């Protein structure tokens, strides 16, 4: 394959990899029901289970990179808690070493099966209920297919004369071998494939076993670099998974590399020398060296278990949007006590109200009031949080038998439904206003609607938090029927001097959304629990 053929293959490989990554994340979010989460949590409920799951993931995917991003998707979808996911990631590394022993596994064929069956399944209407699971499988297939293309793009390199020259040069320096391993892993994207190449080179006598082992150790640094490079779009807990994989592999690689360097001074025996005692073949030696390095990953993970959270939080601080998406008060245990559960739901709903004005930021007249958060991320976070609250309430309702509690739960469900619709109305209004021509009369009017909505939402939040009767009186005034008022605004907006027909249509839509915002704010205020009377 010529270079001009490798480059498009490299690009296509990257595209499939990222398509797969996005597909996994999106589909897993669809799967993230409370019952599925319980099952996933049960699958990693003990360190042993997490280890078994990790080794299985690693063995099946044959890619430490792929496992990192799969786990990042599971954590993003809140199907797995971060701490357990870190264990799974650590144990996935030894799993990837199996390939070096079982070179007969044809991952290419398995990947095609995944893509073919999952893709056809998605097109089958009868399997609609499985669409999230099939989407996740298709995503894994695309991700692995992408990695395969990246490997294929690197194949011509192995045949090139310069590669053989470099291999000979590696015999002169262990450090050079280590660096070459790191670079090769970034390019070829498969440690197992590198081990196979090294076996071939050792077999031809081009490379010594010590040098080949050093190249293998260097791949650990390459895994870390790959994960960090490919994980640039991640953030929060998903990014922490990437960093964790990078740290584990870098530490394991460094430990093994330092051992090799010490062994070169004859202070300690090298791994190949120790393996000479039981040597079956060069292939087995290299595979064992690779496996030992991969086993160092969970060992490093265990050694860092008390510092891991601190290190990762420092490396990948949680974004405000991620913090918002995670329920702060909802707890499985609270489902047993309805009164407490309803109170916790009210607190969680107050969080939605606190974050809601950030959706208006992009359309404000007063930029200094903006929260600085990205409205797309805030919307995603609010949708996630709303889904969590709604799921919690549904489960609470299914368990409740007491009439009074049932009424309170029904009220909380009504409030939740109004909140979900309120988020949609506020976001739609802000989106419409941003479409208006800048500095036009229509934009000023739209901005006025946005600013007024902000006042109402702020007062609603204060009412929910403090239950001051003055706030309630203000809210009643503010959220009174706006039909006539908005009708007047629409009549004015229909005038020719008001702007383009597109702006006029947008203003009409924005006023409708404003009316709806006022109506829904009133509904939320009306369904709030009564203030406690001492």
């Amino acid at each position, binding site marked *: 394959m010529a270079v001009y053929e490798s480059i498009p293959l490299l690009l296509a490989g990257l595209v499939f990899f990222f398509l797969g990554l996005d597909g996994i994340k999106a589909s897993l979010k669809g799967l993230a029901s409370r019952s599925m989460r319980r099952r996933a949590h049960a699958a990693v409920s003990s360190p042993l289970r997490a280890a078994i799951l990790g080794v299985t993931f690693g063995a099946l995917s044959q890619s430490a990179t792929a496992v990192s991003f799969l786990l990042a998707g599971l954590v993003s979808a809140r199907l797995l808690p971060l701490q357990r996911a870190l264990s799974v990631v650590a144990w996935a590394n030894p799993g990837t070493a199996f390939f070096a022993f079982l070179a007969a596994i044809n991952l290419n064929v398995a990947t095609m099966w995944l893509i073919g069956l999952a893709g056809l399944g998605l097109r089958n209407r009868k399997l609609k209920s499985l669409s999230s699971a099939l989407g996740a499988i298709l995503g894994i297939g695309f991700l692995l297919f992408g990695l395969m293309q990246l490997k294929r793009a690197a194949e011509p390199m192995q045949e090139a004369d310069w590669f053989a020259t470099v291999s000979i040069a590696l015999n002169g320096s262990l450090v050079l071998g280590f660096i070459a391993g790191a670079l090769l892993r970034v390019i070829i994207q498969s440690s197992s494939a590198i081990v196979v190449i090294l076996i071939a080179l050792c077999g031809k006598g081009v490379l010594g076993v010590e040098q080949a082992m050093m190249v293998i150790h260097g791949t650990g640094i390459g895994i870390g670099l790959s994960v960090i490079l490919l994980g640039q779009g991640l953030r929060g807990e998903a990014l922490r998974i990437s960093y964790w994989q990078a740290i584990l592999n870098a530490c394991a690689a460094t430990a093994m590399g330092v051992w090799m360097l010490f062994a070169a001074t004859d202070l300690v025996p090298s791994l190949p020398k120790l393996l000479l005692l039981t040597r079956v073949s060069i292939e087995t030696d290299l595979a064992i060296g690779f496996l030992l390095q991969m086993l160092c990953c969970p060992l490093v993970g265990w050694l860092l278990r008390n510092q891991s959270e601190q290190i990762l939080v420092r490396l990948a601080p949680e974004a405000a949007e991620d913090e918002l998406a995670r329920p702060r008060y909802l707890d499985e245990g609270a489902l047993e006590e309805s009164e407490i559960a309803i109170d916790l739901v009210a607190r969680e709903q107050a969080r939605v109200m606190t974050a809601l004005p950030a959706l208006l930021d992009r359309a*404000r*007249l*007063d930029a*200094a*009031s903006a929260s600085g958060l990205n409205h797309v991320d805030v919307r995603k976070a609010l949708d996630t949080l709303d889904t969590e609250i709604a799921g919690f309430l549904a489960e609470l309702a299914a368990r409740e038998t007491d009439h009074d509690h049932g009424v309170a739960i029904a009220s909380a469900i009504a409030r939740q439904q109004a909140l979900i619709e309120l988020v949609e109305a506020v976001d739609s209004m802000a989106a419409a206003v941003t479409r208006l021509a800048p500095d036009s009369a229509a934009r*000023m*009017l739209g901005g*006025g*609607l946005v*600013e*007024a909505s*902000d*006042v*109402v939402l*702020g*007062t609603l939040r204060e009412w929910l938090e403090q239950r*001051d009767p*003055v*706030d309630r009186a*203000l809210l009643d*005034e*503010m*959220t*009174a029927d*706006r039909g006539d*008022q908005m009708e007047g605004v629409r009549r004015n907006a229909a005038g020719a001097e008001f702007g383009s027909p597109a702006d006029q249509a947008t203003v009409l839509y924005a006023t409708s959304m*404003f009316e709806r915002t*006022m109506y829904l704010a009133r509904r939320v205020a009306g369904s709030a629990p009564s203030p406690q009377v001492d």
Partner: protein
Amino acid sequence: MTCIRSDAFSIFSEGSENPRVVALAGKLDAISQAVAERYLESVVADGATHVVLDCTELEFISSAGIRALLFLVKRVKPIGGAVSVCAPRPHVRQMLEFTGLKSILSISGTVEEGRAALSR
């Protein structure tokens, strides 16, 4: 009372009678909100229960600015007071209308009309 003036906003009042007239000028937004609230707090602490806000020179008001006015309403309402907004420019008037506060912050054409409305 003293006058507080910044680059884009100023607030001042004269005398100590009730209703008290407080003049606002410039931009009342997120930047000037805290200044306005502090000043209005001191007006209430000075004994004013009925406040006429002269908005003749107020060019712009945002949600943060409206919140400063609501801050005043929430201070004077519990003690039987009231707030009137006088001579608002079209943008300010529109903001008050959109917020639905026309009846809570009674709007008058002039300061005299505002005084009269609060004295009734």
